[in-house]
Every structure is written in structure tokens, then in C-alpha cells.
């Protein structure tokens, strides 16, 4: 299915809404093309192209709601999908937490579409695979990687006259390089808005260097260490904590953001005062749609300010119940950092561990956001400002809340994840800094390379 332009999308949505006999109707079109190439053992393993466009229709009779979707757009199909949604709504019990569709909103376009990324071809993908594999083969190393790119559009409209349309692109590359004897492993990831700024031949050097440098790792005793976490290592830990920034759970007493005796900790200082994070749909490095899942206008807003919690997610139902104005759900989180490179953070470290990435993170205790996971693909011992030797991977048991109170220094912020989009990443888009943290808790050693 081709990408629909704004007038084509508007015509389909308006026609769809026109078929509805329900009290209200919201329709959205979400379409795009995802291309990918996968390689392993220094050869291409799979390559694919998926082209999907879907129309979703939600209708309501009073508080009874029904949803149906379809991927054909002739008049008969549009009417059928509306009738299906209406049938389901009539069968559904009343939803006491139903909220009516949003009124007409005023969206300001954000720069989520980059032509160079939309122009990625099968030849581009093949070249990325070749540029990743060849230098590895030349040095008797083994590459396994994945490139995925999307171009698409999102359009939304409702029976109250609201309408929005926007195009999006994204590109995500990861590559793992291992030594032929499996003694060393390195990794590199790049998530970019603009594919013209991507050079696999340059990026692969990072993974190659880490693979070669991580062979013959020594075992250190588990315990509390000062760590220099690269941004990819930071993001996994922060993501879990940010999932918990939910007002209803906090108000219900089942969150680390619950207040003893009732209520939540919005407005309290929970982190080091250097912790600052905000959402901004227009940020040029990590732009997201100007509306949230309910159609509310997203704006720039602080999430954490000088260590103080400034934002919790409220569903529109929960906001109404708590007597506050609706709060738009952020699509991105940008955590402020400093000017230092990871190398400079290492240079100022007397004794510590450099962590390339974190892996298989799971919640152990939501009461304290205690997370467990492991280091992977490049873990090194730092002494007197220099990387001395590779060390075996560690398992950590640590809370990001505690981690953000133990900050020594923040490094440069980079884009990690494009967030939810057309066929794109999941969750929230993120930019995070490298971070030096004291007393990070490693609880056991892993023999995994």
C-alpha cells in the first residue's frame, strides 16, 4: 500500500466517520513500509520488506465502546469496519471509565520525517551489511547485525472535527562482533533520524575494537563499584523507572512514587539535583508526534527538574477523577547531560568499571524499582583514568532511583530510541547521557562472553 498523503488520508477518515451512526466515532490511519536486513556468521541471513496500512475505528454508544480495524479502503470496506465496531460496542458492557473523544485540537507539525531516511533502498541495506561484515572478516572476527528502517504516516480524525496528519521515518542499526574463538564480544548501536549521517564502516570500528579488547577478560570480585555507564547501558535502567511514572498506580499505593498514607510524590525531590529530564515533541534530535494516544496536544514539559518529580502520567479518566486538567502523555524523554565524552568520564575515574551495555533487565521489586540484569559486549576495569583490562561480565541488582542519587558525573546525551511510530520502535523515544555512578551493586559474575 502506498503512503497516503494528507488529503487522501483525510478523505478516507471523513468518509469512514460519515458511515457511523454511533454517538461518536474516532478513526485513525497508520501506514508504512519497514525494510530490514539481518546478517550473522559474516553472511546475510534474511532480508525483508513489510508494507502495511491499517484503519482503526472506535465508536461509542453512551459508555459502550467498540473497536475494529481493516486494511482495505474501498467504500464497502470502510462501511463494514464501522458496522463491526458498532456491533462490538452494542455487545460490550458499559465502561465506567469511558472518556469521550477529544474536541478539535490545534497540532503544530514536528520534524519526524527525514527524506534521506525515507529514501533508503535495498542496495543501501545490502551495503550496510557488507560494510559491517568485510572489516570483520578481514580481521578474523565474526559479525552479526540488523538494520531496520521505516517510512510511514499517521492520521487521526473524530466526529467532533479533530484532525491530524504527519509523516515519520526511523532507522536503527545494531551489530555484535565476536572474536573467532568466542573469547571477545563487542557491540555498536546507532539510532538516527537522518540516514545520510550513518556510516556503517565507521561505526563497526567501535564494535571491532570492543571485541578485540574484551578477549581474555579477568574475574573481579562482585561488590559495589564506581561505574561509567555508556548511554545504552543507562537507558535500559531508566526505561523501567519511567514506566512507573504513573499517577494512578502511585495514588493507589502500589508504586515507588506512592506516598505513605496516600497520594503520590509529585513535586518531591527524589534524585540528585543534577537530574533533569524533559519531554519535547519538537526536539530536532528525537522528534515525536505532536499528539498523544488520546489526541491531546503534546507540549514541552519537565519530567524531572533539579531532582524533583515534575510529571506523572495521568489517563484522562484519572485526571478527571482527581480534579485536574488532562495531562498529555509524553512521547519522548530527553535527559540533560554534560559536555564530557565517555573517554573523559573514564579519564577522571580512579577505580571503576566501564559498561558498554546492559542486558535482560527485569523488575525484581516494584516497591524499590530494584532491577536485575547483566553487563554485555564490552566490560572493562578502569584504574587511574585509563582502561586497564577487560573483566568478566557482572550481574547487577540495583535500583535506578538509588543510581540517580549516586551520580558522580554526567556525560554527553545521545539518541537511543526513536520510540513508537509507524512500524518503528516501541515505548518512549529517549536521549540519555553517559553517566558515572558510585556504589553500583554487582552481585555475581557471569562467564558469558
Amino acid at each position: 500500500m502506498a503512503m497516503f498523503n494528507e488529503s487522501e488520508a483525510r478523505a478516507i477518515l471523513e468518509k469512514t466517520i460519515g458511515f457511523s451512526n454511533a454517538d461518536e466515532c474516532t478513526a485513525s490511519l497508520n501506514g508504512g513500509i519497514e525494510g530490514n536486513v539481518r546478517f550473522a556468521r559474516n553472511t546475510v541471513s534474511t532480508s525483508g520488506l513489510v508494507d502495511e496500512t491499517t484503519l482503526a475505528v472506535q465508536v461509542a454508544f453512551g459508555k459502550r465502546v467498540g473497536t475494529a480495524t481493516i486494511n482495505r479502503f474501498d467504500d464497502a470496506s470502510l462501511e463494514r469496519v464501522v458496522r463491526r465496531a458498532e456491533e462490538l460496542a452494542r455487545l460490550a458492557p458499559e465502561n465506567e471509565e469511558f472518556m469521550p473523544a477529544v474536541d478539535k485540537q490545534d497540532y503544530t507539525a514536528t520534524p519526524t520525517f527525514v527524506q534521506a531516511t525515507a529514501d533508503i533502498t535495498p542496495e543501501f541495506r545490502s551495503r550496510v551489511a557488507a560494510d559491517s561484515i568485510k572489516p570483520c572478516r578481514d580481521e578474523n572476527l565474526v559479525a552479526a547485525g540488523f538494520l531496520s528502517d521505516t517510512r510511514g504516516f499517521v492520521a487521526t480524525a473524530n466526529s467532533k472535527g479533530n484532525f491530524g496528519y504527519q509523516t515519520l521515518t526511523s532507522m536503527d542499526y545494531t551489530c555484535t562482533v565476536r572474536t573467532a574463538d568466542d573469547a571477545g564480544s563487542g557491540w555498536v548501536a546507532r539510532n538516527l533520524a537522518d540516514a545520510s549521517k550513518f556510516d556503517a564502516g565507521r561505526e563497526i570500528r567501535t564494535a571491532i575494537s570492543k571485541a578485540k579488547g574484551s578477549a581474555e577478560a579477568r574475574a573481579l570480585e562482585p561488590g559495589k563499584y564506581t561505574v561509567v555507564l555508556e548511554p545504552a547501558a543507562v537507558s535500559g535502567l531508566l526505561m523501567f523507572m519511567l514506566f512507573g511514572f504513573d499517577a494512578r498506580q502511585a495514588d493507589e499505593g502500589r508504586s515507588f512514587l506512592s506516598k505513605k498514607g496516600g497520594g503520590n510524590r509529585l513535586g518531591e525531590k527524589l534524585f540528585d539535583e543534577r537530574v533533569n529530564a524533559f519531554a519535547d515533541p519538537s526536539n530536532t534530535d528525537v522528534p515525536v508526534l505532536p499528539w498523544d494516544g488520546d489526541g491531546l496536544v503534546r507540549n514541552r514539559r519537565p519530567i524531572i527538574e533539579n531532582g524533583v518529580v515534575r510529571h506523572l502520567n495521568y489517563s484522562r479518566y484519572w485526571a478527571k477523577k482527581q480534579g485536574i486538567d488532562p495531562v498529555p502523555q509524553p512521547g519522548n524523554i530527553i535527559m540533560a547531560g554534560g559536555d564530557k565524552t565517555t573517554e573523559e568520564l573514564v579519564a577522571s575515574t580512579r577505580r571503576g568499571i566501564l559498561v558498554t551495555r546492559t542486558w535482560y533487565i527485569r523488575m525484581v521489586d516494584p516497591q524499590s524499582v530494584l532491577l536485575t540484569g547483566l553487563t554485555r559486549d564490552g566490560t572493562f576495569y578502569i584504574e587511574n583514568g585509563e582502561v586497564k583490562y577487560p573483566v568478566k561480565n557482572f550481574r547487577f541488582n540495583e535500583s535506578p532511583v538509588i543510581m540517580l542519587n549516586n551520580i558522580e558525573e554526567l556525560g554527553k546525551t545521545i539518541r537511543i530510541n526513536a520510540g513508537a511510530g509507524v512500524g518503528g520502535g516501541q515505548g518512549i523515544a529517549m536521549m540519555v547521557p553517559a553517566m558515572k555512578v558510585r556504589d553500583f551493586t554487582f552481585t555475581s559474575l557471569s562467564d558469558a562472553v
Partner: protein
Amino acid sequence: MDRRNFLTITGLTAAGLMIPLPGRLIAAEALADGRIEVAVKKALADRALTAATAAGASYCDVRIGRYLNQFVVTREDKVQNIVNTESIGAGVRVIANGTWGFAATDSLTPDAIAAAAVQAVAIAKANSIIQTEPVQLAPVKGVGEVSWATPIKKNAMEVPVKDKVDLLLSANAAALAAGANFVNSTLFLVNEQKYFASTDGSYIDQDVHRIWVPMQVTAVDQASGKFRSRSGFGSPMGMGYEYLDADPAERVEMPGGAVSYRHSYNIVEDAAAAARQAREKLTAPSVKPGKYDLVLDPDHLWLTIHESVGHPLELDRVLGYEANFAGTSFATLDKRESGFRYGSDLVTLFADKTQPHSLGAVGYDDEGVPTKRWDLVKDGILVDYQKIRDQAHILGQDASDGCCYADSWSSVQFQRMPNVSLAPGKKALTPEQMIADVEDGIYIIGNGSFSIDQQRYNAQFGGQLFYEIKDGKITGQIEDVAYQIRTPEFWNACTAICDESDYRIGGSFFDGKGQPSQSSAVSHGSSTARFNGINVINTARSLG
């Protein structure tokens, strides 16, 4: 999962289950009909096979699928969502110039499916230029026109939505009456109607059903700010709606008073028990870290088996095909050659795609190979891996194990974990007798948090209920328990396994693997087992 839509269905943002929702949503009544006639599917498949062969394919298989899901989502006394989805289409896989090619279409017309076949051949030929390992397929004999269906007694898709809502709300009410502050329960149904045809002469029609009722019950002590949850003990099963019949014959009362369920789940009883146990957790003493003898219930042990045995013995991981995502494996080919001791003499771990009630049970896999049971670890020794047609030659074998799977018509099939289970002990032994022999131990029921490294050595597991064992007796619940293992040491520390009368299966709907990621459903059975001297940590932390 990049190309999937996701929905947070439980309404719990932090603990929410992210459920992939392939396909389009449909009205409830459409779930019970809309099957595609076998004759129609055969004609479409033949068209694709002919087109692929004419375009130069040396092999072709076609999968025509209709995938149905239903979700009924509730919390406390409210229905939050009812969603029906349907996804229909066909995937065509070919070998041309010794290279795989794949293309899929959601248009089930003869021309569209033939075009997909031609496109798959073109992709194979294009990729063959940079291919360095030509495909070698283990032979499989064509089975002609056959069919297989999950042996269900009651098609859950045909049960009225009202009955489902009533059952979930009854469970929620029971939890609230028993002291819960919050309860979330969801019914999740899957029906895969899939047709496979290949140039080997197979035409296989299968109708696969699965059911799962995840539940989470939470107790809050607002004065102290403490909260604790207990998940339901219902397992995802390869069964129909009869799983929810609460047959007392399938009820298993365990030492300490907790109740588990074999092949029939009493969700209302379990909801009330979960509420009581969650409230007890609020005041249970915190574990003293150290070495303990662990007694692991099947409701817990399935996940440890999954992570520390199922994954490391996937041959594609061992070979490096998953190195960039899920990782590789410590169980390298040389270990099989040298008779690596994976576990103690008591430990036999077997793969099985035929086990009744299991999530992985099918008649034939997604490349037309009849399913079977085989040993992975026999009497403690590593003897085999999980492999499909294009991998068998690597081990010098001439047959696939029949464990190839794709999660959609639009996904390319690849090696996926079959059910992997721990064989029951051969001597009569009950959990009560096992516990009576433990001096200083912990009895763990239900699965909690889980994490394992990319080669499957170092793992950490939590649980739902932890009972302290002192001098052969259970003293009561304790909290903040997680144990850490190194896989071979853990399985070599297995000193006792209960007999088959205690055998039960657990499992997951969401085993993720591949890029783009695909989900697979898999079960793991065991009887209660004992592991000596395992490292237990205390997970309590104070945020000040």
C-alpha cells in the same frame, strides 16, 4: 516485534503485559466462522508451488494462515476492554540458487499468491550473490493430505463473551472479598488455523487452540507504604474453554497449603487464595541471604528450565545466528561431542512437540515435519539440540526434529523451542516427603522475575510464594527471595525429583526470538525437584 501493534491491556502501566496484536480486530461472532475451505487453500497453495517452481525454485513451501485472538480485560468490578482480532494471509518460502527467499501477501487470490512466490524466488536469487553457506535441507517424506487439531472439548471462541466476563468478575470479587485492594484478570485466547503445503507433497491442515488467564492480585498497606502482589497460578495451556471448568480432580494441594492446578483451573478459588497470600507477604519476614536447599514447585521450575535448558540448546543460538539479539550459548558443539555433564545422574531433560495440553503440541511443524519427543540431556549428559531441516546436517543427522515455527503467515518460519521438560523421578516421592528431608531450605512456588545472560550461564530467579523449611517442616512465608545460579552447577545440584504423580506443566505465550522479533508459545513440565546449596540473595532495598 517492530512491525506489530502493541496494546497495554491490563491498565497497569508499570506491570502491564504488552500484548502483540497482529491483524485486524473483528466482531465476536466472526470468531466462530470464517474458516477457509481446505479445497480453496489447496488450490491456492498449488498455484504458489507451481509458480515458484516455474521461476526456478528447487523447493517451495506455502503457509496459508488465519490467526484469531480474543482478549477480555478486567480490573476489580470493571470490564476494561474486549478485543477480537483476525489476521489472514499467506507466506511463501523458497530455495533458489541454494538460498532462502520469503514473501508474504494478505491477498488470498491465485494471482497474488503466485506473485508472492515469484517475488520470493527473486529475493532468494538476489541474496544468493552474497550467500556463503548454501542451504542443505534434511529430507522429509511428503505426507499427502492430512489434518490435525488440538484435542479441545469446548471451543473457547464459541463461548459467549458474557460468560467470560462473569467468570473474571467473579474471580475479582473473590479476591476483593479475601482482602485484596486491587485485582487485574484477563482472558487471552488464541486459535491458529494454518495450512501448509510443500513441493515434497504435503498438504497439512491444522487447527491449534491455546488459552491463558493471567491474573494479578495486590494488597496494599497504605500506612507503611508497602505493597505486595501474587500472580495467578493458572498456566497457559493448549486447551479449550474446559480448562476453566474447575474440575476438583485436577486440584493439587501442596505442602504449606498453597493450591496448584493440573489441567483444570479454578480461578475463583485461586483469586481468593492469592489475596490472602499477598496480604501475608506484607508482614512476612525477610530472607537471610546465604546457601539454601531449594525445593522448586513445577509452577516455578518451568521458567528455570525454559531459560537454562530450552534456550541454550537451540542449535541456531549455538551456531551464532542469534548472536546480535538473544545471544549465543555456553552449550557448544564440542560439549556434545565430549559428553558434557549438564546435570546430575537424576536429570533427564526432553523435548516434546506431542505432549497433550502443552502449548507447543502440533501434529506437524511449520515446515511439514511430523512432531516427536527426543532427549536433550540424558541421565545428566548433553546428548542433543533442537534443530530443523536446514540444520540437521550440521550435526551429521539426516532428519529435522520438527520444531520450526512462524508466529504469523507474514513471518518467516525458523527454529523455535519445543516443549522442554524435566523427566519425573523414577522412585516414588511426594513433595511432602521431599520437604521432610530438608534441614535448611526454601520451597518456591510460582514464577517471578527472571534474568539470564546471553550465553545462558548466570541466571537469577524470583517467585510468587517462598516458604521457609526448617528441619523438615514449613515454618511460614518469607519474602525478598531471589536465587542466582550458574547453569551446569545448578543442574548438577539436583538431588531429588518427585515422581510422575506430581508432574505439572507451566509455560509462556511470549517466548521472543529473532529480528524482527517473533513470539512463540511453549510449555515446560516437571515434578517438584530439589537443588542443594543454591545461593539466595535478599532483594529488599530502602529508598529512604
